[in-house]
């Protein structure tokens, strides 16, 4: 059995999500006596490609092409499906990053494969091919049986560990087979927020709500985030009032996150907000209302005035960092 894994490169390097995907594929391979092929569209140097072997890739197919250096849903799909056909892959693993979310369904349609996205478990093959995924924005889990010969699994980033399982480095260069006419969408400009930790990748998230009374008080969130190396987030009302950008809104209609630690300051914990954060390992709620629903979902709570509480926590966090 061949398992194909898409390893996403950004500017010629891999992010943790790519290694997670290779590790995931490698675990399936170990359980089913299979082998893992990693496919990498875009120009990546051999020493970088070799990193994929460290996590269990038996073969690394490098598809070099200047126009593939930036993610492109249509052409990446063609490249991946060509390799899947050549390798006879029966499972395709893709990390469900923003790029993965645009790619996985296209790959599934092209391979006429059943697809599960937002996967949070290894496949259970005792009866069929069942994977678990998040539904209702984290309010529940669903178990789905993929019934097609080929399966596409879009796995949730930050859910599976990267596991070293070094294989001999076997890099193969393959032609893309693409022409200019295939590139119907073109990237014009990329703006990445530099110096800030992306919310979806952050292990610690500090989040503020209406209880902070206005954007001028956000230093309370930012100072703690800086001290702990955390990302900042906010509740829906806060982004609706434009105190903070929409990109920071976590909740059912915003971003779903699952950091190790989520600290909510002045957020009541409405069901829609909890949906986006309830998978966090440890939740701390700070709110002046002892009846705030967040205290039912939190591991630790402080009932009181955030303006009194936060300076104490920030001071302790700074001391902790120094210590």
């Amino acid at each position, binding site marked *: 059995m061949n398992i194909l894994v898409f390893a996403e490169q950004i500017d010629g390097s891999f992010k943790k999500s790519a290694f997670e995907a290779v590790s995931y594929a490698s675990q399936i391979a170990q359980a089913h006596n299979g082998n893992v092929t990693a496919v990498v569209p875009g120009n990546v140097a051999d020493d970088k490609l070799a990193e994929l072997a460290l996590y269990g890739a038996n073969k690394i197919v490098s598809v070099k092409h200047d126009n593939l250096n930036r993610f492109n849903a249509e052409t990446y799909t063609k490249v991946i499906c060509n390799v899947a056909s050549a390798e006879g892959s029966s499972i395709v693993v893709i990390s469900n990053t923003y*790029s993965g979310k645009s790619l996985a369904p*296209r790959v599934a349609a092209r391979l006429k494969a059943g*697809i599960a996205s937002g996967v949070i478990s290894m496949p259970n093959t005792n009866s069929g091919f069942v994977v678990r995924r998040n539904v209702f*924005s984290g309010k529940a889990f669903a178990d789905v049986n993929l019934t097609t010969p080929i399966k596409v699994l879009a796995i949730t980033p930050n859910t599976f560990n990267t596991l070293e399982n070094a294989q001999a480095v076997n890099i193969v260069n393959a032609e893309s087979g693409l022409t200019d006419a295939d590139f119907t969408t073109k990237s014009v400009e990329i703006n990445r927020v530099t110096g800030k930790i992306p919310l979806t990748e952050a292990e610690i998230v500090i989040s503020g709500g209406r209880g902070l009374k206005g954007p001028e008080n956000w230093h309370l969130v930012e100072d703690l985030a800086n001290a702990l190396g955390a990302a900042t987030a906010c509740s829906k009302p806060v982004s609706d009032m434009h105190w903070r950008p929409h990109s920071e809104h976590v909740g059912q209609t915003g971003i779903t996150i699952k950091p190790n*630690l989520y600290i909510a300051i002045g957020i009541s914990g409405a069901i829609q907000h909890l949906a986006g954060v309830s998978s966090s390992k440890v939740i701390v709620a700070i709110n002046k209302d002892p009846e705030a629903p967040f205290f039912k979902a939190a591991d630790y709570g402080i009932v009181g005035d955030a303006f009194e509480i936060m300076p104490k926590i920030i001071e302790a966090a700074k001391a*902790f960092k120094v210590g």
Partner: protein
Amino acid sequence: MKILVCVSNVPDTTTKVIFTENNTQFNTAGVQFIINPYDELSLTRGLELTEKLGGTVTVITVGLADTEASIRKALAIGATDAVRINATPTDAYFVAEQIAAYAKDQNFDLIFTGRESIDYNGGQVCGLLAEMLGLPSVNVITSIEIDGTIANVERDIDGGREKLTASLPLVVSAQKELTEPRIPNMRGIMAARTKPLTVVEPIATEATSASVGFELPASKGSVKLISVEDAGTLIGILHNEAKII
């Protein structure tokens, strides 16, 4: 400009999620269904584009007759006409196949989906549909402007944003910020009653997945409270007890 907006009928965001039939069915008793919020953004942006450039906005949904309240709302907001494919939407692959079968000879210039439905969160219909129709797709867009046969779009990427150009016809999925949703007015509600709603029977397809069951997450134990005076001890507790920092 001929625009198609794919609409999903989803439980209201305040819904308490409960499962029945030995955790195999979502309990819809007493649940209020709404247009998926991202689809509402798609619809509004579609209307804004046709107001500027001329054209029509067709809404399409895959669902049984009980979804017609949402369809009528979409018509009241301003859609030109509506199509309902008369089938239970079993999974995204099925939904995309049904919409593709309808759309393939309709010459739409632009097809909108939502970033994901807020119930099953697959986020798959945009990509599935685009590939089935052989069209380009751009996911999670926060902005779209049309310039002749080219769309200038912006999409969210991990840790930032990307500007792209794409040729029409094109399939996109709407992210927040695309626009602000519109609320139907009385005139729209009156007009919606007489706008065309076509019911189409589904095509035969083969299932690609089957739902096995659902589970609710384990509830948290009771919260440990720290006093305001001792707020600073939180950091030590997170380090020593929770071992999380």
